[in-house]
């Protein structure tokens, strides 16, 4: 694919994500209804001109709750990705760069964490810590850092043995220069793409924890929590679960498509 086509694709997908960000972070200031205001007389209203996505069992506007909840879903997943990628990458880089005892200790910790199915581990940690968004973030970080530790470790190990790194060492480059000039620029692209591609999965995991009652606390409009609450009314008011699911789908697909376009852009010479 030509560079201009890749740039166009990346621009379009980035534009879509920026639009979503504006919608979730600035939108709440311009909502037609208060997302947490209940009005039983307006419960289970189907989509109409007054409530474009209808209302839920307590008469709250679903559109307003999706916009308000989007900020929480996106913010929490970005927090998980930032924390887990930074912690995982630092540990992976230390293991890959220094090797020896550091590599053994960090690899053993990774092996222990990998021994558990990832979502089961997140549920266990969130369950022990108690229901809150903060604890759900900690639980998901405990699962997602492994990906970045493994990835950065293998990337650093691979690059360290490249001839241009050996040549740099022979030219007198100190370890800090070798790391910041040669190794970091070579791995940052792959790590960034993985982060972007994982955001969708983290949003789903966060929704999963909230669905199980281990994430957002009522009346927070986090999408997973809303889906969990509304599953009892699926027959009666399918629009509640449908529009929340659609919002989740659009954001996940938006991040995945952006990650894919970034991958093409970075790996295109």
């Amino acid at each position, binding site marked *: 694919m030509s560079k201009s086509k890749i740039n166009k694709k990346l621009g379009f997908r980035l534009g879509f994500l920026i639009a979503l960000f504006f919608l979730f972070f600035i939108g709440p200031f311009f909502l037609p209804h208060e997302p947490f205001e209940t009005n039983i007389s307006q419960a289970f209203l189907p989509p109409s001109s007054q409530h474009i996505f209808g209302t839920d069992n307590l008469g709250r506007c679903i559109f307003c709750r999706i916009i308000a909840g989007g900020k929480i879903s996106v913010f929490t997943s970005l927090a998980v990705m930032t924390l887990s990628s930074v912690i995982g990458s630092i540990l992976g880089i230390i293991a890959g760069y220094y090797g020896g005892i550091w590599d053994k200790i960090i690899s053993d910790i990774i092996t222990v964490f990998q021994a558990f199915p990832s979502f089961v581990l997140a549920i266990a940690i969130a369950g022990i810590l108690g229901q809150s968004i903060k604890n759900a973030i900690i639980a998901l970080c405990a699962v997602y850092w492994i990906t970045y530790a493994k990835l950065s470790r293998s990337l650093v190990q691979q690059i360290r043995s490249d001839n241009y790194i*050996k040549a740099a*060492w022979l*030219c007198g480059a100190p370890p800090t220069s070798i790391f910041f000039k040669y190794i970091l620029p070579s791995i940052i692209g792959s790590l960034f793409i993985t982060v972007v591609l994982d955001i969708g999965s983290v949003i789903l995991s966060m929704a999963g924890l909230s669905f199980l009652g281990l994430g957002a606390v009522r009346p927070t409009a986090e999408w997973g929590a809303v889906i969990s609450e509304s599953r009892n009314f699926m027959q009666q008011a399918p629009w509640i679960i449908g529009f929340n699911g659609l919002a989740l789908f659009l954001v996940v697909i938006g991040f995945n498509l952006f990650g894919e376009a970034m991958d093409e852009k970075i790996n295109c010479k």
Partner: protein
Amino acid sequence: MEKTILSVKNLSKTFNQRNHSVDAVNDISFDLYKGQCLALVGESGCGKSTIASIIAGFTAPSGGCVMYHNTQLSFQNKSAQQQRSTMQMIFQNPLSSLAPRMSVLENMKEAVIYHEKWSNEKIESEAIRHLVRMGLSEKYLNRYPHQLSGGECQRIAIAKALMRQPDLLICDEITSNLDVCVQAEIIRYLIELKQSGISILFITHDLSLTGQLCDYIAVMKNGKIIESNRTEEILNHPKKEYTQTLIKAAF
């Protein structure tokens, strides 16, 4: 009397694997004199590159020692890098020798900045001088490795190595991935370098490349030097059957 730049004494390297150990280099000794070229010749896997790797400080030996400018070289510590400040190595794969995210100028700059306090203008003028010496021009300065051919990359790698006028140049199979014309050009450049006083350790599996360039040849087999002598002697009067086979294969 010829001045010894590099002296390898009873060098050995054993790689321990799960069930067994491999003696990649076994009790190797040789000397390299100032302004001369020594070829280490042998089939793939005979330990030539391991020797280069030990001399350059990337691998620690299992036994023996390496003397450079009459100083015993250390390994895997801070002084190891400093001791090798007048040594450069060129690798087999031309593309992997240059940092892929740096331009040619940035790559060449790296050879200087850790030892010299040159201005950017001086670095650039020296880079151009060495590029021209290698048959290239200043238009290559802003190009990136992926925009260059294998031969161009290898010439730039040599130009980079020459930036600080090294005393010893280790060439590890540097012509293996290049076509015959480029090979001949590279050999011509190396002869010029040798005449300017740089000592060269030339590692190759192809004896045909050694005739014009090398003063001495050491033939290796299974981690040992089985025959070594002046180039004319080796090429015209080989004593070992293995050397004769290599010569037959090359010419």
